[in-house]
């Protein structure tokens, strides 16, 4: 017999009962479908102990790393504290320690958390202003001992939050942020795998984090191809840094793409996703990351899949899924 803590309540399992059945027997409202580990409707997350391996069959590696499991397959071996995905919201404070322009409409923002934090580059956090306005942004840096977080914030013409970041937020001010979420990040264990990363606009932010994580933290050996798309050259806001990376790491390749007019041969004319997916028509065994405009991401996901990438190896910007 084990104890399952769910929210404020604790329940005891009866012999060999699954987490799902324990919760349902106690009239808890939790989503479920097939009860056979197939539909993944009953996805939950363990907040303390790692769940039994058997309850993680079919999940993505990133989900496994974060102790997600399927409640219908989980016969707990130890007491567990569990939650539904993305409901474990608590807020941490961070101080703004750097702010500068990366281009005319993209701001680089660096925060320092007041507490240690765990995250993978490419995941996202929600940033919250004092009055409660919340926006989610991807983390563009790799984990460091200083508890820093970096973001690329696109200034939208009528953006309530982004305009405030541009006009009023200053170094020394405090922001709150939520725990890192999402599965769009580097996965350990396949250092020889080819990676294809396609980003438009500030969709580059998570990809830049993932690339540095792959190259410097994990010494990724496989080829890494980044295609960054923008309408004009001013939107290729990390061109210099990325070009430098290609000189340091021979397995890293950067293709800046312009959908507008091209006046310089170092740029490729066309949409980043079209160019990337035409260049690599066979994606069997590849891992693919797609971040940026929703239409681009959804279209490219389908194309990448039809060109051979496994669905489990296609990671997309999680903002799309939660639609904040």
């Amino acid at each position: 017999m084990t104890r399952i803590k769910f929210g404020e309540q604790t329940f005891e399992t009866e012999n060999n009962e699954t987490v799902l059945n324990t919760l349902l027997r106690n009239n808890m409202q939790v989503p479920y479908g097939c009860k056979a580990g197939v539909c993944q409707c009953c996805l939950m997350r363990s907040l303390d102990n790692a769940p039994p391996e058997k309850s993680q069959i079919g999940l993505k590696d990133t989900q496994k790393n974060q102790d997600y499991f399927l409640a219908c397959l989980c016969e707990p071996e130890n007491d567990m504290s569990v939650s539904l995905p993305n409901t474990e919201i608590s807020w941490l404070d961070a101080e703004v320690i750097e702010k500068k322009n990366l281009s005319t409409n993209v701001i680089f923002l660096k925060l320092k958390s007041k507490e240690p934090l765990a995250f993978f580059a490419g995941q996202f956090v929600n940033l919250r202003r004092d009055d409660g306005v919340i926006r989610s942004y991807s983390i563009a840096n790799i984990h460091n001992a200083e508890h820093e977080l970096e973001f690329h914030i696109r200034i939208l013409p009528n953006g309530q939050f982004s305009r405030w970041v541009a006009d009023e937020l200053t170094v020394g001010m405090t922001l709150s942020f939520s725990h890192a979420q999402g599965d769009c990040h580097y996965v350990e264990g396949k250092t020889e795998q080819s990676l294809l990363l396609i980003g438009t606009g500030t969709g580059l932010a998570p990809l830049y984090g993932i690339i540095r994580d792959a190259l410097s933290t994990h010494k990724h050996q496989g080829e890494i191809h980044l295609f960054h798309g923008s309408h004009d050259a001013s939107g290729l806001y990390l061109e210099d840094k990325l070009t430098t990376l290609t000189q340091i790491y021979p397995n890293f390749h950067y293709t800046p793409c312009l959908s507008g007019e091209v006046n310089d041969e170092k740029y490729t004319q066309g949409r980043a996703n079209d160019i990337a997916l035409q260049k690599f028509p066979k994606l069997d065994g590849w891992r693919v990351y797609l971040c940026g405009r929703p239409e681009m991401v959804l279209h490219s996901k389908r194309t990448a899949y039809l060109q051979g990438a496994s669905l489990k190896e296609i990671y997309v910007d999680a903002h799309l899924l939660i639609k904040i």
Partner: protein
Amino acid sequence: MTGTTTNATLFEQLGGEAAVNAAVDIFYRKVLADYRINRFFDGVDMDTQAAKQKAFLTMAFGGPANYSGQDMRNGHAKLVKMGLDDSHFDAVVENLAATLTELGVSAELIGQVAAIAETTRADVLGK
């Protein structure tokens, strides 16, 4: 396939869960690439859809199925309004058979899978 497997269930003979996992990727890709039926899959979440395909394959392979004919009926009602008919159902079964052929499954077992898939026709087409 050699030896006698008369005591094994169809699901076991096909290779169980691992076989479903191998098949679903190939099957869904064939379906999405098939111009006769892929319009029915426009705008759906691919991960959700792949999970549904997996549940369907598990059932067609003679494995555990926990959804009812009524679920099938409700799930496809919108597609029937879009014009889903026998020709589309046949195309799906054809893709299923081609998937199994690609995985080296014998014609006899493919026939058994197709026969199970056939039992869902009336519910899928809302007949």
